[in-house]
């Protein structure tokens, strides 16, 4: 992480002047920035994946598991790409520009991009690919993020998106993993069961919940990338089995290392741990409509009675950073650097309890490890640290099965995780604004809602930063979610693999583009 504040992401001006952005981007080779050694072609990358289910499907609207998401980025391209340094660069689009109010976006497509099947990408493909998630009867998990699009039209190699409200971050949305560009069929739909794409590797065979094999796409347009001949993704649910497979050389890379034993894995010869902190965070949301959480002092008391450092040290085994009760990570563009880090302070917790007119407090927290790895232990540690200020937390163990439908957003005090969103606006409007489908605390704050809307279409970078800083302050002080920690993505790989100097932090597996950006050392 070279810088915590500005300068990493593109300024609004460079986003708007998309073509100029490519000019500069080309000079510094955005994929793979200054490399340690000259990459070489060849070899089969074998990846051990922790999450993959026999119920995974090829339909982009259902992608959810780690397996689906990595496979998506290995076999597909998107209109835009988040580079390893966190900036947004064009991928299948060559450039984009917006109308002055940021409601109409014109994407100019790269010409001559070949699918694995040999077809060449057209504007119709883009329209079909995005339309797959739109409409009244959409069953796509991405329906909410494309809900703002009111119309998509084609004009030669230009695709014009019309939005219902201005959104300066719209090109970021087009990098979402649900939105790959795939061939359109004659009737303007896409083949939801198909495997064709225009990414670096073509799917040769795939068996849900077991694994897949992909081979290099010879006609891939992106220069200096996709060094492997083939990629094998192998689903290995069991932590011990996965780490064993890496140590015994059956796989070259594992996407998830067990945090309880990662220090032991680190000692194995020829193994390197890859730990990046990005936007993934764990939280404990409270229903702000339900007593006693409707009292802001009660929420504050709970926020002061959690020992964040202890959680990072034990639950994450040190692989993470402290959270400050708002969802914006330290590596993000508008991260509030002026906000004081909240510490464990039983005295202040007691003060807030008294402000709320309470001597002591008894609350239930409903947790399961489905919420995040180590959620149960987090609950127990929280109960322990909160006891010092007269708060009795009763940890209720819920089943993992059905956690997201029966406990989360149903019980008043639960656990949650967010892999995070690349922009502050996206994160806030997904889970914090009034009426957002995943507003897990049912929080409604007038000033905050107003700021989200105004910052979304704000043109002035400084004004925008100021607004996002204030939003983080509001969420941290008045919001309903305790966010004690940002969890690093911890994977491991054999030292036969070489990786670029800069590893993307926006997602696991080098921004899910390990197959495109890494190579075998010689």
């Amino acid at each position: 992480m070279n810088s915590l504040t500005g300068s990493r992401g593109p300024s609004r001006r460079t986003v708007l002047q998309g073509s100029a952005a490519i000019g500069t981007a080309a000079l510094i080779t955005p994929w793979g920035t200054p490399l340690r050694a000259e990459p070489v072609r060849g070899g089969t990358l074998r990846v051990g994946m922790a999450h993959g289910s026999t119920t995974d499907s090829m339909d982009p609207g259902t992608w959810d598991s780690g397996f689906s998401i990595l496979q998506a980025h290995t076999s597909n391209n998107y209109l835009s790409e988040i580079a390893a340094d966190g900036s947004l660069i064009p991928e299948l689009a060559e450039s984009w520009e917006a109308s002055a109010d940021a409601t109409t976006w014109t994407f100019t497509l790269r010409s001559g991009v070949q699918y694995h099947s040999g077809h060449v990408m057209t504007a119709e493909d883009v329209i079909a690919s995005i339309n797959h998630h739109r409409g009244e009867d959409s069953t796509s998990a991405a329906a909410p993020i494309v809900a703002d699009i009111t119309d998509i039209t084609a004009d030669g190699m230009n695709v014009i998106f019309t939005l219902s409200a201005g959104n300066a971050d719209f090109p970021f949305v087009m990098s979402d993993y649900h939105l790959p560009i795939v061939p359109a069929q004659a009737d303007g739909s896409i083949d939801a069961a198909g495997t064709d794409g225009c990414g670096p590797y073509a799917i040769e065979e795939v068996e849900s919940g077991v694994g897949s094999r992909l081979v290099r796409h010879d006609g891939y347009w992106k220069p200096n990338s996709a060094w492997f001949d083939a990629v094998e993704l192998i689903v290995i649910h069991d932590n011990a089995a996965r780490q064993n497979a890496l140590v015994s050389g059956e796989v070259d890379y594992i996407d998830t290392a067990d945090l309880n034993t990662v220090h032991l894995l680190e000692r194995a010869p020829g193994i390197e741990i890859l730990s990046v902190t990005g936007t993934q965070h764990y939280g404990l949301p409270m229903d702000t409509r339900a007593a006693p959480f409707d009292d802001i002092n009660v929420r504050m008391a709970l926020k002061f009675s959690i020992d964040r450092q202890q959680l990072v040290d034990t639950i994450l085994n040190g692989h993470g950073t402290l959270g400050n009760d708002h969802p914006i990570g330290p590596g993000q563009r508008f991260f509030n650097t002026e906000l004081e880090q909240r510490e464990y302070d039983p005295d202040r917790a007691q003060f807030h309890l008294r402000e709320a007119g309470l001597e002591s407090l008894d609350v239930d927290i409903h947790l399961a490890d489905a919420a995040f790895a180590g959620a149960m232990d987090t609950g127990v540690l929280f109960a322990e640290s909160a006891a010092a200020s007269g708060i009795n937390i009763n940890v209720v163990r819920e089943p993992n099965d059905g956690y997201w439908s029966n406990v989360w957003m149903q019980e008043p005090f639960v656990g949650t995780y967010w892999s995070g969103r690349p922009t502050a606006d996206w994160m806030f409007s997904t889970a914090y604004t009034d009426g957002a489908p995943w507003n897990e605390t049912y929080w409604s704050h007038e000033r905050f809602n107003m700021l989200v809307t105004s910052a979304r279409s704000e043109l002035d970078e400084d004004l925008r930063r100021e607004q996002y800083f204030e939003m983080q302050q509001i969420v941290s002080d008045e919001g309903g979610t305790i966010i004690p920690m940002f969890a690093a993505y911890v994977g491991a790989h054999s030292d036969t693999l070489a990786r670029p100097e800069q590893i993307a932090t926006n997602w696991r597996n080098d921004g899910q583009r390990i197959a495109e950006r890494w190579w075998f050392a010689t």
Partner: protein
Amino acid sequence: MSHIWMMIAQRLALGLVTLLVVSLIIFLGTELLPGDFAQEILGQAATPETVAALREQLGLNDPMHIRYVGWLTDVLRGDLGESLANGQSVADLIGRRLGNTLSLALYAAAIAVPLSLSLGILAALFRNSFFDRVANASALTSISFPEFFVAYILIFWLAGAGGPFPSMANFRGDPSLGDFLYRTFLPALTLTLVVTAHMMRMTRAAIINLLASPYIEMARLKGMKPMRVIIRHALPNALAPIINVVALNLAYLITGVVVVEVVFVYPGLGQLMVDSVSARDMPVVQGISLVFAAAFVLLNLTADVLATLSNPRLIHRR
């Protein structure tokens, strides 16, 4: 002999009724689980609109009995339906995995059954000797450990850095027989260790039970060698209980090995069942339960037929 055919026909008919009841119970059980397919598959990303649209699309809004009867009619026509999750035909999904599960079960049985029978016979022959005690103790020890622990121990000693066997049993495409036996040796050995004790101790007990009988006494008095007494005279009469225990363990090898599948990354039916239940993918869950139930019915039937055939008094009934 005709009464044996009668018995088989009768038992098969009863088996069909059992399958029907099992499918009903599994269906009701899946319905009782909180949440439905639309919610579970969308998980944290579910919104009320997408859940409603998905339910509508898949016909999950129909009342329970209509969905069950619809499924049942399809099955009677020989169509197991399609997975709700990815639209693949359930027969295909199960077919691929069933082949894997059966091969592993067969492999494990091919080691475990001869091993436990001979150990049982030897233990009966040398009962209360040092050998008997060691065989018993080690068989009971291995059955007392949870399967995953046995698996980890085997991986630790026999796989991993420098070990002769691979820790992952998964393979791509059609491996040669030798390759298959090599890659799946550790899971087969794990299963062997788990099922041996039961069969071995039953063999030993059944034989020892007979050793006090007068006709064994007679054989001994004739001066027959102890091994021959056991093999020729005791074993044939002890077969019925042994066959039953073997059948029970074979059924277990088919239906109960999900933990071993997970540890050794072996794509069998168990993991498919677990994934489908957690996503409430009803057609797949139903399909697999039918396979599992059928395995129990058929193996029990086989055991009964073989037990009957091993008993002359039952074959030549007057």
